[in-house]
């Protein structure tokens, strides 16, 4: 719409990739008068791994929910490069149906589109194999550990082969060992599938390890204040955590985050 607004750092498209979706001047005010987002401008490029990081109340979850279509922006525009792309969503909690087996949980998105269990079988198996849980297809969620439940949740989000995967602090409730393992899984899955990922997190280290680009947000009102590229190969291993690039990027992201928080008088 208005090209003059493209000065915002977050609108930089990474390495000339095609745009998948762009948010322009998106604001969101809740019914109780709280402003969650104020003139947020954000581009998501096809194939990138974008992390949204910021203090509580900066509206990162709200931005994710607007992308998912779960809530409407109060003003501003949301433009997709493709009609109704398939979207997967992973919540902070595994959000599984406790009465259904692992297999039936992963079947759900297909089932809601009237795909029978038999014709869905291959895709369910593939999705469960991707997260290494095919052996547990007939288990029930409560028989699984927290990390396994989260992997089922990821398999469910991937079973429709989404063009865009939205993740709202998916590993925040897990212990660090499990979290690291799931981070590696996610890097691998992302590389295998080429899905575009938008990932909300509180953790600077997690965002640097996973992302190709990090958008740093500030609160009250929620907006993007900085964008940081992570110019490392997309496949990351534990060694990446020891590289100078990783350390420098973490420092840079931390500084940006502290800058964002310093502006917030309520903290």
């Amino acid at each position: 719409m208005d090209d003059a607004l493209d000065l915002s750092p977050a609108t930089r498209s990474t390495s000339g990739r095609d745009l998948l979706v762009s948010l322009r001047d998106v604001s969101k005010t809740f019914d109780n008068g709280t402003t969650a987002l104020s003139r947020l401008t954000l581009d998501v490029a096809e194939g990138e791994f974008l992390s949204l990081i910021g203090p509580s109340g900066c509206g990162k979850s709200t931005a994710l929910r607007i992308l998912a279509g779960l809530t409407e922006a109060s003003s501003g525009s949301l433009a997709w490069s493709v009609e109704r792309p398939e979207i997967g969503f992973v919540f902070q909690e595994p959000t599984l149906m406790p009465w259904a087996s692992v297999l039936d949980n992963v079947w759900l998105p297909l089932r809601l589109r009237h795909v029978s269990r038999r014709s869905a079988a291959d895709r369910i198996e593939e999705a469960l194999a991707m997260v290494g849980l095919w052996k547990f297809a007939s288990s029930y969620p409560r028989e699984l550990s927290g990390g396994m439940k989260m992997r089922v949740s990821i398999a469910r989000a991937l079973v429709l082969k989404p063009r865009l995967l939205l993740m709202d602090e998916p590993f925040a409730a897990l212990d660090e060992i499990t979290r690291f393992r799931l981070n590696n899984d996610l890097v691998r899955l992302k590389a295998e599938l080429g899905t575009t990922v938008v990932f909300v997190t509180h953790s600077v280290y997690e965002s640097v390890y996973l992302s190709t680009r990090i958008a740093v947000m500030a609160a009250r009102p929620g907006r993007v204040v900085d964008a940081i590229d992570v110019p490392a190969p997309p496949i990351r291993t534990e060694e990446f955590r020891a590289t100078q690039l990783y350390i420098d990027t973490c420092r840079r992201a931390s500084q940006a985050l502290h800058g964002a928080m310093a502006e917030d008088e309520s903290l």
Partner: protein
Amino acid sequence: MSAADPIDMRSHVADSAAGPGDRSWRRLVPHRPAEYVLPVAIFVAAVLAWEAVVRLRGIPPYILPTPSLIFATLIKDWPILSGSLLVTLRTTLLALGLAVVGSVGLAILFVQSKWIERSFFPFAVVLQVTPVVSIAPLLLIYLEPGTAVLVCAFLVAFFPILSNTALGLASADHNLIELMELYRASRWQQLVRLRLPSALPYFLGGLRIGGGLALIGAIVAEIAAGSAGQGSGLAFRIVEAGFRLNIPRMFAALALISLTGILIYVVLTVLNHFLLHRWHDSARKRGA
């Protein structure tokens, strides 16, 4: 990473050793003999003490019969009592069935719209808080005695199932509701795939209360009907035997009513266990 995930694997194995699915019957019954030897022994001792006190003190049977006499009466009067038992059982189960259909249907209607809930819930509350004994005489004027008894039993069973089911339908995980929206599930899909399964534990809780209350409703209405009951259910037998001062038969009918209540409770508890034990905490073995 494959499933070679030592930490996660171990916790899974530890959990499944507690036995999901297998030998689920055993969880209903105490494991060690001592756990049921004591309750049974105390029950037997109480009955024996009753027998002994009545015999030693020479209390006449028209004041307090011995357990053995009650049991003998139960056998002797079985042709009469068994017919009444069937009538009471049929009334109770029919009332419970109708209450399930009506209350679940209404609860589903409630969850569709807050306005429907606000408009109709007061009626349900009025019916619930008005003691059934006070409605029974009116119903007996308007309806055939058999129908009046059925309606009373229905009315008392209705509310607990309704309020529990409505609560359950409304308590579906809000993230799962959002997931349904994301995948553009229809209202019907949301109801069948999410709200109804979420409400199942609540519904079964309501059903257990409703099952007991349906029996109470049926008995109360029969007592209110009194001699107009035209020789039907167990409560009528109690009233009738009371008029004739046939105290042992009163006790025998009372024992059958208690047994019916226990039977209903046990059947519904077993049903609850079978439907929920794989996934719901309420049916989970403690300490597992």
